[in-house]
């Protein structure tokens, strides 16, 4: 059978993107899976040998890994849930503001665009007893980044500050999809402001909410920059990415580090699948079409 011209052209045009994406994701992931089955320490490259699932056993029985999983989940769940509410508020402001709508939209983009390392530094300085202003408010009598819960607070605050705009923009796209006629009809039908929001707007926005949740959750699970800059993983704030980084590039233990990498990959993929399944119906792919 002759392959239609349109098919060949489609493949041809997508090929460069496919190659580029596969080169940095599919191939290394497979390489990581292979490496994770070896003892492979760059400090002792000659001692490389196949060890089966031993590396996974090491990781899964270590307290460091599980503490890191806990820290990652705490950061992710807290920041994403606050961001969802805050992001919705921000989206409504961007959508409805009678004055300064452009200003708001521009202002909101700033945290999104700022280098994460800079954001982390800015908040660290703000909470630092000598260079900051928060200490002066007298909420805490010790340096914030010396206590576990307050260190978490700063990390989460930084995440929220930096990524709520992204959430808000995705939600704004969803808000724009709600037909004005549906809201006007609900108003004529006597629905109150709150009823209109919860009965009409929210259900119609469900796909957008799902997409926003999906992207932000997956993104939060990867948290690295903020923690690296603010605590370097101290005080129990070490997330899984940092464990992976330290094992791979500080200890140079590629075998064990790859096992951590693969586990993180599984964790993130599992979370993504769970969100899509949990929300059901609205395919994230819808956002592509």
């Amino acid at each position, binding site marked *: 059978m002759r392959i239609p011209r*349109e098919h060949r*052209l*489609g*493949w041809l*045009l*997508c090929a*460069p*993107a*496919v190659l*580029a*994406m596969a080169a940095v*994701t599919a191939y*290394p*992931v497979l*390489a*990581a899976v292979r*490496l994770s089955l070896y003892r492979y320490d760059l400090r002792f490259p000659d001692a490389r040998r196949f060890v089966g699932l031993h590396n996974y056993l090491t990781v899964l029985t270590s307290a460091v890994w599980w503490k890191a999983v806990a820290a990652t989940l705490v950061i992710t769940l807290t920041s994403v849930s606050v961001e969802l509410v805050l992001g919705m508020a921000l989206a409504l*402001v961007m959508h409805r*503001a009678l004055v*300064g709508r*452009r*200003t*708001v*939209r*521009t202002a909101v*983009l*700033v945290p999104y*665009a*700022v*280098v*994460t*390392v*800079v954001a982390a*530094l*800015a*908040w660290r*300085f703000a909470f630092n007893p000598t*260079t900051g*202003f928060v200490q*002066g408010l007298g909420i805490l009598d010790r340096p914030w980044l010396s206590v576990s819960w307050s260190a978490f607070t700063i990390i989460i605050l930084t995440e929220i500050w930096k990524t709520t*705009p992204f959430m808000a923009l995705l939600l704004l796209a969803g808000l724009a999809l709600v037909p004005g006629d549906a809201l006007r009809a609900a108003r004529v039908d006597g629905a109150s402001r709150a009823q209109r929001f919860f009965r009409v707007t929210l259900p119609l926005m469900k796909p957008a909410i799902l997409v926003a949740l999906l*992207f932000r959750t*997956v993104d939060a699970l*990867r948290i*690295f*920059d903020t923690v690296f800059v603010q605590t370097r993983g101290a005080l129990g704030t070490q997330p899984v*990415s940092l464990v*992976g*980084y330290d094992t791979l*590039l500080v200890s140079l233990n*590629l075998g064990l580090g790859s096992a*951590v*990498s693969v586990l*993180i*990959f599984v964790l*993130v993929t599992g979370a993504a699948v769970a969100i899509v399944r949990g929300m059901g119906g609205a395919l*994230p*792919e819808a*956002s*592509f079409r």
Partner: protein
Amino acid sequence: MSDRGTALERLFWRATVLVVLVYAGLPLAWIVSLSLKPAADLGDGHLVPRHVTLAHYGAVFANPHFPAALRNSLGIATLATLLAVALGVLAAYAVVRLRFPGRRLFLGGALAVAMFPPVAVIGPLFDLWRRVGLYDTWAGLVLPYLSLTLPLAIWILAAAFRDLPWDLERAARVDGATRLQALRKIILPLAAPGVAAAAVLVFIFAWNDFMFALSLTSTDHARTVPAVLAFFTGASRFQQPTSAIAAASVVVTIPVVVLVLLFQRPIVAGLTAGAVKG
């Protein structure tokens, strides 16, 4: 709604806008303030510096690492942006305009890449890059940035293309243009806002990345600003060069803020309005 209600509403919205501005601007304002304060005033807790000095900026640029990092950041982010937009345009065109087997698979794959955890690949990339000579080079960072931003680029470009009246492309092809000519002369000029948006977002990603820069570079040869900033931080445990870091942070923030301001402007949004129907 009465006039008084409207006035009240306007007041409400003004206050809301102010809150958003403070939210977005305060941390940055603080870091700008720190970068301008003389060392003695660092701990005074004032947002508006009592004395202003540019000495820290001078110091930052005197440090040989920083200008090199700035150059690396600019070069690498620009290259990644150009490539991602170029490849993204081709793929987005195919996705929007052509029906072919594997199209959905391609989109699904791109979506998966968009959610990809970088830490899952830095190990093998570190290993591979060192063996093939990409470690600590521009290309060694451009490639991961290109790959990981392609989904975003394709997404934005596909959305922009989808909004174009496709009759224009069909007309161009009837008028004698090839698909490529139609893409270049009709689609791209009209999708310019979308192309700009994609480019800006790819640039921001590349400009912001920390983990790859940290893992795949080691010297001024390719190390980018975020990695250098973090390196500043770790240099001295006891006396942190806060002012210098603040100054460097401000410098590295300026380009993205400028981009965001430009991007937000309604870039010829009305261009297509009126092309189709009234």
